[in-house]
Every structure is written in structure tokens, then in C-alpha cells.
């Protein structure tokens, strides 16, 4: 007896969930309550236990698929159970004729389609519908295709999920791209599309050690990162300002601290400098959250710094709270705790939100400069790069100093250019003359 397990609404009015992980394979035997899969919805992430005993006959979705509530997620071939009255209705796959499987009630005496005619008529209709449905394109793209006289069903789409883009249409119109002339893969439009070019009987290719291409789903954290990066790029008006900072003085301080038993990186110094500058009234708008829908900018009272951190799962931004009120020593301790937790994949969820400004640092791999993407709803982000000894002109002499570029991206909707520039300069001043940093250190 096949039992079709439909995704339940596991959270009051949830309409879909992302299947994040299968916990059983096809063919596996499951008992009641055996964990089947993990699902992530808007409200909860949950492990779904099996309601039945039997063998997993089919998994209908893959990891990363978004499953609508009510859709059949997996079929369990029940073992031992006598078919119940409710479950004994003939199922679709028991029907032999392909047409009949689309007719809901198999026993209905007045089927609207005569079986004989159905077989011949239905096929082309289906093919046409499919051809139309398969073309994914925005209305503007379709309009463009019509105006250029391009048959959009014959254009190979290069966008998401094979979506036909405006460029695809223009290229097809110009006949520039060989792809444009080829039929859309798997679209049943053979009758109208030019035949696919026959495979060239090429000379045997020398075997290489390359394996097959590897396709992976964008799951969980990766998907979240993608969405957030895209959203930031789509909404904020990024501008990036770069300047070079002299770290020679900080470097000396760092060595002194090390000799006194406090091992630290440059980051806590930068954090303190940033916090001090952000607390100045003229830079309050940089320590802020923007809500464009509500049309508001919330200048935050405290400075809570997001520290972009690489983890095995992907980029996370744990938050160090209240940087404005913490000592350098405290920051050193907290940063190392964050790093440990990140390595162990044990960052508490609560530590991942609430930042008011973000610092991203690639350490030794920091390169020269970059164009960091703002961690919304914040309005600015500071990128730190490689510190190295560089020749610098001081007075009329060339001397060797420890130098680093800082790249700071701002949301130009909120932050004017001169404010952003002044901010970076203010941070630079504190870092180059740590005495000034000390004056405001808390």
C-alpha cells in the first residue's frame, strides 16, 4: 500500500518549506517516528518523523527544493498494514493508460474525453501548452521579441532556470550567437525549430584526468548569503572609498602588549578607533540602520560591531556588542571566543544579529583593497587589508613604514561622499597617532 506523505503545515499558516536535508534514502526501511527529512520554514526548522512504517519508495523533492505545503514529499510503501478503507482508492500509478492518469476519478462513468480520441487529440495540445509554458521571460523581453520578429520559443535562455533575457533576444535577432539558433533544450518544438547541429565527428580527444562537472544546490546558509548580498547590491547605492593608513605606531603598541602578555591582532585597535569615531555626533548616521520601506534611518546609541568571519558553512557575521564601552583586553578575549565558536560551528544564533556597523578583514590574504558589500540594514562597512612594510616619503626621505589600505563602502543614499571620506580620515588619524586613541579610550 503506497502512502503519500504530504508536507504538513508545521507552523500555522506556513505555505512552503525548504527541504534542507534528507535523512533517509530511497529503498530504506522506516518505522513510525523514524526521522525522514529536515525542513526550514519561515517560522521553524524541524525534523519530520515518519507517520508510517514501510519502505521509502520515492523521494519527490531534492535537498534545497522549496516544497509547497500539501505537496507529496515522499511515498512510503507500507509494510504489513492492511489497506484501510480510506487508503484503498485506486492510485494513479495503477492506471495503465497515460491519459487516464490525468482523470481524477477512474470509475467516473461520464468521462468527458472519449478514450480513443483522447489518445490522438491530447498529445499535440499538451505539446503546445508545454512549449508555451516552458518559455520563461519577462513581459518586456517578450515585447522586445515581438517587435524584433523573433520567435521567443526558439531562443535559448541564459538566465535563471533558462529564463530568456533581453540580451538573448537581441543576440538571436542579430544571429550572432550560435546558441540563439539552437532549439531550447528539451522544449518539444522540434517541428518549428531548426534541427540541432549534428554532433561533429571530432578527432578522439585525449583522455584527461578531469572528472564530471560538479553541481551543488544552494542550500541553507549559502542561499541566505546569496539573497542578502543580492538584496544589498540591489538596494544600497554603494560607493567605496579607499585610503592608506600607517600602522607603525599601532604595531609598536601591539608588540609592547605582547611583551606584557596580551597577544592581540590589529583588529581590536581598529574596532576601538571605529567605535570612538562612530560615537562622534557628526558620524552618528554611519552607525545606523536604514529601513527604506518605512523611510526611516535609526541612528543606534551603542556601537555593536559585526565581524565578518569565514566558517566552514560560509560567511557569518557574529556581533561584538557594546564595543564603545569595552576595553581592548575585553575585545581581545571576545574576538578569540568568537573565532573558537566559529571554528566549532557553534556560534549562538543570538550572536549573529544586532550589529550596527561591520568590519571585514581577510588578514594576511587581505590583498590591496576591495569593494565590500554593506551588511544591511547597516549603511557602511569597513574592509581591512594586508599590512606590510612599504617605502613612504616622510619629509624628504624615503622610510620604511607599516602600511595598510582600508576600503570603506557606504550607502550613498544615506551617506554623502564628504561624510564617508571624513569618517575614514578620522579613523586613520586615531590609528596613526594612538595617543589620540588613548584620550577617548574606555
Amino acid at each position: 500500500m503506497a502512502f503519500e506523505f504530504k508536507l504538513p503545515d508545521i507552523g500555522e499558516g506556513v505555505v512552503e518549506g525548504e527541504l534542507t536535508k534528507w535523512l533517509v534514502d530511497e529503498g530504506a526501511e522506516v518505522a513510525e517516528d523514524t526521522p525522514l527529512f529536515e525542513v526550514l520554514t519561515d517560522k521553524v526548522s524541524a525534523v519530520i518523523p515518519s507517520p508510517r512504517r514501510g519502505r521509502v519508495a520515492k523521494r519527490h523533492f531534492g535537498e534545497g527544493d522549496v516544497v509547497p505545503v500539501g505537496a507529496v514529499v515522499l511515498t512510503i510503501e507500507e509494510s504489513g498494514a492492511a489497506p484501510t478503507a480510506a487508503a484503498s482508492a485506486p492510485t494513479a500509478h495503477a492506471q495503465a493508460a497515460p491519459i487516464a492518469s490525468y482523470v481524477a476519478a477512474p470509475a467516473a462513468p461520464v468521462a468527458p474525453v472519449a478514450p480513443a480520441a483522447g489518445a490522438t487529440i491530447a498529445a499535440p495540445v499538451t505539446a503546445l501548452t508545454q512549449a508555451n509554458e516552458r518559455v520563461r521571460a519577462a513581459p518586456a523581453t517578450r515585447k522586445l521579441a515581438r517587435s524584433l520578429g523573433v520567435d521567443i520559443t526558439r531562443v535559448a535562455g541564459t538566465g535563471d532556470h533558462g529564463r530568456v533575457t533581453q540580451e538573448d533576444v537581441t543576440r538571436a535577432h542579430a544571429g550572432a550567437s550560435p546558441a540563439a539558433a539552437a532549439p531550447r533544450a528539451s522544449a518539444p518544438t522540434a517541428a518549428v525549430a531548426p534541427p540541432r547541429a549534428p554532433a561533429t565527428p571530432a578527432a578522439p580527444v585525449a583522455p584527461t584526468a578531469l572528472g564530471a562537472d560538479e553541481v551543488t544546490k544552494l542550500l541553507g546558509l549559502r542561499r541566505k548569503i546569496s539573497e542578502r548580498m543580492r538584496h544589498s547590491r540591489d538596494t544600497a547605492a554603494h560607493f567605496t572609498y579607499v585610503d592608506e593608513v600607517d600602522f607603525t605606531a599601532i604595531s609598536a603598541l601591539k608588540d609592547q602588549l605582547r611583551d606584557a602578555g596580551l597577544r592581540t591582532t590589529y583588529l581590536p585597535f581598529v574596532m576601538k578607533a571605529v567605535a570612538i569615531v562612530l560615537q562622534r555626533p557628526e558620524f552618528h548616521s554611519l552607525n545606523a540602520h536604514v529601513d527604506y520601506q518605512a523611510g526611516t534611518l535609526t541612528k543606534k546609541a551603542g556601537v555593536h560591531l559585526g565581524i565578518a568571519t569565514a566558517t566552514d558553512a560560509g560567511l557569518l557575521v557574529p556581533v561584538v556588542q557594546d564595543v564603545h564601552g569595552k576595553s581592548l583586553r575585553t575585545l581581545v578575549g571576545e574576538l578569540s571566543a568568537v573565532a573558537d565558536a566559529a571554528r566549532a560551528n557553534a556560534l549562538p544564533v543570538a550572536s549573529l544579529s544586532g550589529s550596527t556597523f561591520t568590519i571585514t578583514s581577510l588578514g594576511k590574504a587581505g590583498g590591496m583593497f576591495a569593494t565590500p558589500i554593506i551588511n544591511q540594514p547597516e549603511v557602511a562597512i569597513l574592509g581591512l587589508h594586508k599590512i606590510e612594510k612599504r617605502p613612504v616619503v616622510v619629509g624628504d626621505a624615503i622610510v620604511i613604514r607599516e602600511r595598510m589600505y582600508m576600503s570603506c563602502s557606504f550607502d550613498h543614499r544615506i551617506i554623502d561622499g564628504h561624510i564617508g571620506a571624513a569618517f575614514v580620515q578620522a579613523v586613520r588619524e586615531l590609528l596613526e597617532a594612538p595617543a589620540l586613541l588613548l584620550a577617548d579610550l574606555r
Partner: protein
Amino acid sequence: MAASQPPPVEIAPLRVLRADGTILDPEFIDSVPASDIARLYAAMVAQRVYDDRMIKMQRQGRLGFYLACTGEEACAYGPAYALRDDDWMFPAYREPGVALWRGFPLQTWVDNLVGNCDDPVKGRQMPVHWSARAQNVVSISSPVGTQIPQCAGTAYAMRQRGDDAVAICFFGEGTSSEGDFHVGLNFAGVAKAPAIFFCRNNGYAISTPYEKTTATPHIALRALGYGIRGQVVDGNDLFAVIKAVREAAAFARAGHGPTLIEAKTYRLAAHSTSDDPKAYRSREEEAEAAAQDPLPRLRRWLEAQGLWDEAREQQTQAEASEAILAALARAEAKPHPPLTTLFDDVFAARTPLLEAQALELAAHLSSGDSAYRASGGH
């Protein structure tokens, strides 16, 4: 007019049993028969088994919704035990134990969750909104706080009638910041109603932590403002809860008026099946709270008395599991309530409009092309 001496507000938490299972107040223990304590413990263990099963049922798509009381069992079983069967109880959604302890049949509770034809409220309520009239437990309302003025009014009515019963209501600390809390407590204070306002302070109102719902360090302090008695109690200590409710009931029966009890506890589980606490609190915090879990604490004491052991624990869990699975199997086999009852119970007699709608439905059902079945069914 000179104000009379206000009743005391005690914010040092009442505690009888320490977290390590040792006793602070041996005198109190003497007032509770040991066999009762073992029964209470077994009932709380069973409750946890039921909760666990119901969450699985919901994840399997067999229940629309569920809400567990994991970690807060003492706050239901303690008061139910401390009170008399003729005392009225107005629970929130997190205290099925108050009715189950009074003999509300497990089967009826499950019939309600499933919403079948034997559900006393005929499948019209969301799961968890059960009704146990025979146990003097008033139906659960979804809007939080509704039960507080209801309890105050019932207590006042009983006093007017000369009954010596009391009324108790249960609510969360989040709910204590709702307007109904003020209405109920203020009225009960003025009327010296024999009411007990039992606030389960479990730290959260869904995802909102305590500090974001109120600036007072103790909910019980609010009793001062109403001129009523206040008492903080360790809500993870079954004995302390029993003691606090007994004292409040005696105070009320003696005509001195209501008590606001604040039981400090922790919601170890999610708010409900629609909630995921991973999004708003840390694993460390949960682990810390789990160390205060009322069940292991009581078990330690019972074991020290030779009243409990691992075998009894296993047996209790197995029996509870068997009982709940059997009740669920029966509940799922029962048909839905008949569709034709849809028009009953709001008015004593159907209004003409309802009557017309009932006739229309009957005609539709008998026309043969209806997707529904008049007699109920699956």
C-alpha cells in the same frame, strides 16, 4: 478613612526542595502523603511523554497545532493538587495537567486535539483549546488574559453566594502586561474576591524575553499596586508550588481576598509547534535552565526516600506512551463531528438566518454532488 494594613508581598522565592533534591522545609513535606508525591511525579512524567508524542503528531501532519508545557509541569500539577475539586480553574493553553489531574479523560483530551465527533467542542476550536466542564475547568480562550477577569468575576460571585470555594487562573508573565490583568486584579482586590492569580513566569512570551515585556523585576510586586497579597515561588519546585497555592487558598477562604503568585520557571520547549527558539535564545541559556528542571529535582528526592527508581521511571514512561498511542489510534479512527451541527451552540435556538443556512446546506448535501459528507467522516 484610614487604610487597613495591606497584605504582604513576598519576593524572596518560596522554596521547599533544592535543585539537588534535598529539602529546606521538612515540616511542609510531612503535610503531603508520600504516595501522593509519587503519583504527582508519575503524572508529570506522563505529561512529558504526551507532549513529546503530540509534537511528533503535529510534525507528521496529524495535528494542526500543539503546545507543550515541558519544564512547567509543576505549575499545573501542583495547583491542581493543592486545591479542592470544587474550586474553579481557568487555565491558559499551557496547563492541560490541571484537568488531567482532576480526572479529565485522556481520551477526551485527545479527541479534542484531533477534533473528532467526541470532542466536547465539536472540532470548532484550534487544538489545545480544550474544555473540561465536569472537572470545573473553564474552556481555554485564545486571546491571552481573557481568563483573568473571568476568574475574578467567578470568585466574586462565589463569595456573594457564600460558597467557600476559590477560583484560580493561570497565565504567563507576558500576559500579565495585558489590560485584562489590570482589570481582573484590580476588581478582585476591591471585591476581596477569593481568587488566585497564578502567573507562570517562564521567561518568554513566544520570542519576547521577560525584560522586553515589563520593567518590574518581579511580576508579584504588582500586587502592591492592587493592595493584594503577592508571593514569588520557585515554579520548578512542586512542593513550593503546592505550598504557595495552599496558603493562597486558605487566605482567600478566610475572606482576606486574592493572591498574585509568580512562579519562576522556564519554558524548556518551543512556545508551540509554530515556534523555533533557536532564533532567539542561546543553547547555553537553555542548558542552564534545564539544570533547574522540576522533574529530575523531584525524582532525586523520591529516590532518596526509596519511593522511585529507574524501573518505575521506565514503566511509567512505557505506560504513558502506550496510553497516549491507544487514545490517538481511537481518536483518529473516529469521524469528524457531523456537518449539520455547524449551526448549533452559539444561540440557544437557531436564528431565522441560521435556519435558512442550515436548510441550504442540507439541500446541498442531499443533492449528491457534494464533496462533503453529512455524517462527518474523514
